[in-house]
């Protein structure tokens, strides 16, 4: 019996998990195109996707300019947030870490709050709902990049992940306080715009935005996969990683940079979408029974896409004439899901500790 042949049941379990997630992805993606507040027959959706011109123009526009980019945004955003969540859980050796743990969402919020709520700037932005609101994207990215830059700088000086975590939390509280000061003095209209951004939305990414978002996330995803073996070593702790020849500081910097770029980009376009990044890595670990990043990284991407597509479907259930805020839906679905997984395991700490 050689080692290669040993883990047959484990191999089957992995294939099952992958197939399951892949089928769910295809199914939900199709459902996301077919279902919505406006009823469109399936063959019309299909024809529109194939480039047919014989249907009513409003249907074609609705499918190609609204539903398709929205579904693609859900796939990209969900994948990125879940992958970042996995990375941060490894980085901080903490089961409740997520993509926003380093202050990305608070930094992005501060950027957007300064833009939307700041004195005098209200006139500069036409309206949040009209068009792509590039200012919001720039402000959000800049805010996220700033907080991540500070964290990256701290990470070179602070070795202990738990200490870094505390810095991240303090930074979140500090920027959060600045945001609430801005909110307090803001007028009703701009306050409304800001609150809408924090609800999260998959509606503001059209083809032009996707043309930027997709390559950024694609490159980050590829780099992350290349580094997956190194992230495995990072999980063992710095001493073990260094004694095995890992360039620990470089790997840590890559982890932070990837998270900043991926979660920062998604947050800029879609708002701070919670819970995907915390929930999916746990679900995927439980499903696959694996711990290596080579396997978990793509599975998390798959799982994140599935979860955000599912949440998007719920947020605009057929029969409702309005769309629910995606951020509320991800938390409503995600929180019980995490609780259920944790309940089934009842030993979440074993991911990160050696004792039972």
């Amino acid at each position, binding site marked *: 019996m*050689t*080692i*290669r042949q*040993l*883990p047959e049941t*484990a191999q089957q379990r992995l294939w099952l998990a992958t197939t399951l997630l892949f089928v769910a992805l295809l199914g939900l993606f199709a459902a996301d195109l077919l279902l919505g507040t406006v009823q469109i027959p399936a063959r019309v959706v299909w024809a529109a996707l194939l480039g047919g011109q014989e249907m009513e123009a409003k249907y074609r526009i609705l499918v190609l300019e609204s539903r398709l980019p929205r579904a693609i945004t859900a796939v990209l955003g969900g994948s990125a947030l879940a992958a970042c969540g996995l990375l941060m859980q490894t980085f901080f*050796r903490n089961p409740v870490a997520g993509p926003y743990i380093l202050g990305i969402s608070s930094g992005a919020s501060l950027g957007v709050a300064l833009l939307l709520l700041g004195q005098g700037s209200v006139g500069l932005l036409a309206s949040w709902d009209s068009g792509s609101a590039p200012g919001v994207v720039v402000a959000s990215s800049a805010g996220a990049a700033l907080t991540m830059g500070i964290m990256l700088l701290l990470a070179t000086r602070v070795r202990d992940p738990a200490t870094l975590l505390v810095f991240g939390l303090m930074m979140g509280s500090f920027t959060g306080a600045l945001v609430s000061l801005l909110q307090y003095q803001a007028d009703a209209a701009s306050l409304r715009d800001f609150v809408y951004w924090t609800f999260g939305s998959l509606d503001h990414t059209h083809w032009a935005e996707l043309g930027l978002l997709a390559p950024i996330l694609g490159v980050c995803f590829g780099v992350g996969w*290349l580094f997956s*073996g*190194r992230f*495995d*070593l990072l*999980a*063992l*702790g710095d*001493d*073990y990683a*260094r*004694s*095995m*020849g*890992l*360039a620990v500081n470089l790997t840590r910097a890559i982890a932070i940079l990837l998270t900043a770029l991926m979660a920062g980009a998604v947050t800029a376009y879609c708002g701070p979408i919670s819970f995907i990044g915390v929930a999916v890595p746990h679900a995927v*670990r439980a499903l696959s029974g*694996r*711990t*290596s990043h*080579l396997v978990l990284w793509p599975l998390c991407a798959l799982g994140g896409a599935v979860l955000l597509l599912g949440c998007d479907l719920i947020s605009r259930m057929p029969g409702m004439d309005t769309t629910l805020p995606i951020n509320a839906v991800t938390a409503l679905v995600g929180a019980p899901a995490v609780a259920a997984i944790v309940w089934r395991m009842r*030993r979440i*700490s*074993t*991911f*990160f*500790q*050696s*004792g*039972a």
Partner: protein
Amino acid sequence: MKHTIENGTSKAPLGLQAKALGVGYSGKVLPGLGVVNLSLASGQLTALVGPNGSGKSTLLRTLSGLMKPLHGSLLLDGQPVQRWGPRVRARKLAVVWTAIPPVGEMRVLDLLRLGRFPHRGWAGDDPKGDVQVERAADDLGLRALLMRPIYRLSDGERQRVLIGRALVQDTPVLLLDEPTHYLDVVQRAEVFQLLAHQASGRNRSLLVATHEVEWALQVADYLAVIAPEGLVVGPAEQIRHSGILERVYRSDKLHFDAETGRFLAR
């Protein structure tokens, strides 16, 4: 003597040599570790002993290349350790740390395979990987545990897995910090025996920092004792009768008996 080995046709690894090494933090040498002379030759197990806080772990960190010495030279396989890149160094020297890595859910096989990292190419290619994993699993009796997650192992099994991870790294030099921590007396005996086998049977050089002086005297070829006047190194038998253990572990509760090699209550 060193030159004859270097110039010889034999490709035997040269092990690890510390020459007048100064070990300490932020410019201050630790007492007893100001001028460390230590040579770890292949096929030999050296036990590093000394009271709590005497600097066993700090010395190990310095010898592993993770901490810079304050002065002196440290040769790994005949070259200054800093001259090797981190990955090349990791193909020559592996460490088992005291800390238990926080990877409870990881399966034994996956943890063992992590040890292959320094041998792997960018594409993850490592033709000798599975052979090394199998050999370590056989040496340490881990065959039946390969699919088990770490959190379901006993303390003794987990320690064998951590040692196995270092063996998989396939290095001529192996440093271990308190590998019998948490273990009962039988498990300790097992660990010491398999470490001795790695030295004599697999021709590696081992340095084992340990509190188990009595075991070290029975199993180790050499003892390195951190004493206030400096690091004293010698064959186990010689150290036993030299009186240094009596001086280093001085207490009104017990005394070292050189005849039996044991600590006895006063």
